[in-house]
C-alpha cells in the first residue's frame, strides 16, 4: 500500500558537502534500513529517491548530495516548507546477520546511520573522496574512514557479513571479496513504485527493476 503525505521540513543541516533534510514523520512508517522514499523536488517534474538516513523521534531524515537540479532544490528547502513524501519503498537490508560490517562510499553512506542503529552499532568502513566529504562519517558510529586513493576494499575485514551502499565500482569490488554481501544499488528513478521501468540495473546479465526488486540485492 503506497503512502504519500505532505510533510513539513523541520530543519536542514549541513554535513560536509551534504544536506541532512529532516521532515516531520506524520503517519509515515520509517520502514527498515535500506528502504527509500520519494521526495518532491520543488519546481521539478519528478521526485527524487532517498534512502532513510535517520529516524529521530517524530521525524524522517534524508542525506542529500546537491549535485543536480532536483537534489539542489531539495537541499535548498527551509524549515516550515512542505514536501510530498512517498514511502517507505523497496526492499531494505536483512538484519539477521551474525558478524556484520557496514560499508559505505560517498553519498552511499546515506542509509548507514539508520542501519547502524538497527544493528546496534557494528564496525563500519567508510570511503570518501576528500576530508570535506568525510565529515559525513560523523553520522555513523564505530567507523574506520579511508580517503581516496585508499579504498574501502583495502581495509575491509575478512569473514564478515557485509552490508554496503556506494558507487557501482565499489559494490562490484566488494562482491569479488564478499560474494554473499548485501548491496544497496542506485539508479535514476521516476516513480519508485514499479510504474516507470526506468530504474533497471544489469546484474548477472539480467535487468532488474531496482525499486521493486531492490534497492538492496543479495548477491547470489
Amino acid at each position: 500500500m503506497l503512502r504519500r503525505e505532505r510533510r513539513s521540513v523541520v530543519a536542514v543541516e549541513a554535513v560536509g558537502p551534504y544536506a541532512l533534510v529532516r521532515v516531520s514523520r506524520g503517519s509515515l512508517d520509517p520502514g527498515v534500513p535500506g528502504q527509500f522514499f520519494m521526495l518532491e523536488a520543488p519546481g521539478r517534474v519528478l521526485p527524487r529517491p532517498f534512502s532513510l538516513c535517520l529516524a529521530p523521534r517524530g521525524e524522517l531524515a534524508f542525506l542529500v548530495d546537491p549535485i543536480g537540479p532536483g537534489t539542489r532544490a531539495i537541499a535548498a528547502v527551509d524549515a516550515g516548507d512542505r514536501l510530498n513524501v512517498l514511502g517507505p519503498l523497496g526492499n531494505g537490508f536483512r538484519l539477521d546477520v551474525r558478524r556484520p560490517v557496514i560499508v559505505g562510499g560517498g553519498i552511499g553512506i546515506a542509509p548507514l546511520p539508520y542501519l547502524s542503529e538497527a544493528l546496534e552499532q557494528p564496525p563500519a568502513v567508510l570511503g570518501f573522496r576528500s576530508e570535506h566529504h568525510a565529515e559525513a562519517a560523523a553520522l555513523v558510529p564505530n567507523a574506520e574512514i579511508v580517503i581516496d586513493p585508499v579504498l574501502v576494499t583495502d581495509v575491509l575485514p575478512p569473514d564478515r557479513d557485509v552490508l554496503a551502499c556506494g558507487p557501482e565500482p565499489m559494490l562490484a569490488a566488494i562482491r569479488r571479496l564478499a560474494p554473499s554481501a548485501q548491496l544497496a544499488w542506485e539508479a535514476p528513478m521516476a516513480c519508485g513504485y514499479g510504474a516507470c521501468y526506468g530504474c533497471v540495473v544489469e546484474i548477472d546479465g539480467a535487468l532488474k527493476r531496482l525499486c521493486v526488486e531492490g534497492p538492496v540485492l543479495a548477491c547470489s
Partner: protein
Amino acid sequence: MLLNASGCLDALIVPAVARQLDAYVTKTVTPEPRDGNPPVRIAETDHGMLNAIGLANPGRERFLAVTLPALRALGVPLWVSVGGISARDYATTCARLRDVTIELNLSCPNVDEAPEGAAEIVAACRAATDLPLYAKLSPSTWDVAATARSVEAAGADGLSLVNTMRGLALDRHLRPMLARATGGYSGPALRPIALAAVHACRRVTDLPIVGMGGVETGRDALELIACGATHIALGTVLFGDPDAPARVRAELADAASAAGYEEPDDAFSVAVGGAAERVVERANSASS
C-alpha cells in the same frame, strides 16, 4: 473516462492506484518478449522527462497466460496496448484477445524498427477482431489529422492522442543522458502539443479521442476536453503522484465550474467551434 497512459503504471504492483481509474491500459505487448533498452533509461529535463524503456514486456504468450488473467482479477476494465513491427504482428495479437479494448501502439519512439503504415496495421487488426480498436498516434507528424482520417477509414473506433515525442538531453559533460541517446519526451512540455493534436483531429472526425500529454491538473484535463477529447489519460504525473487519478477527477469538476460549465462534458469541443463548422471542414477535406 479516466485512464492511465500505457507504460506509466503497473496495476499488479499497485492495484489501489489502478482502481482509481475507469479502465487500466497495459504496457505494450509485443509478439516476442523484450528486455527493453539498457540503462540509463530515464532523464528529467526542465519541463518534462525522457524515457527510453524500449517496450520491455514478457511477450504475447506469457502476457496471455499469466499477466492478463492476473489483471482481470483486479476487476478494472482493461485496455491492452498492442505493439509490433508488421501489421501481421499486431493482428495476430488482436485475434487472441477477448473482452478488452485494444489500443494499437503505432508510435513508440524507442524501438529501432519503424512499424508499417498506421492505416495498414489498423486494417489488418480490424479484419482480425471485433473488439474496440484505438489507434495511438505520434504528434511528430506534419498532419496528424490526415493520419487520423486514414486510420478511421481503415476501421479504427477511436484515437489515442498523443504518444511521446523523440527528444535528447545532455549531461554536464555534453554526453547524452540516456544510454540510447534519444528517448520519448513527456510531461508538462507536451501539453500544448497534445492540445493541438486533439484539436486538429476533432475538426475532422467524430471518433472518441483519449487525450493525453502532460496532464497534471483538472484544468489540464478540461482543456483537452475543450479541444475534443472524450477520455483523459494520465502519464508522467503518476510517477510523482500515485493519487493523481482521484485528485484530477475531483479537480476536473471544480475546473469546469470555474470555467462556467456545470459538468466537464459541457465543455466538450468548445475550443473547436460548432458542429456545423466541423462538418464543413470534413466535407472540404474529403473533396480535396
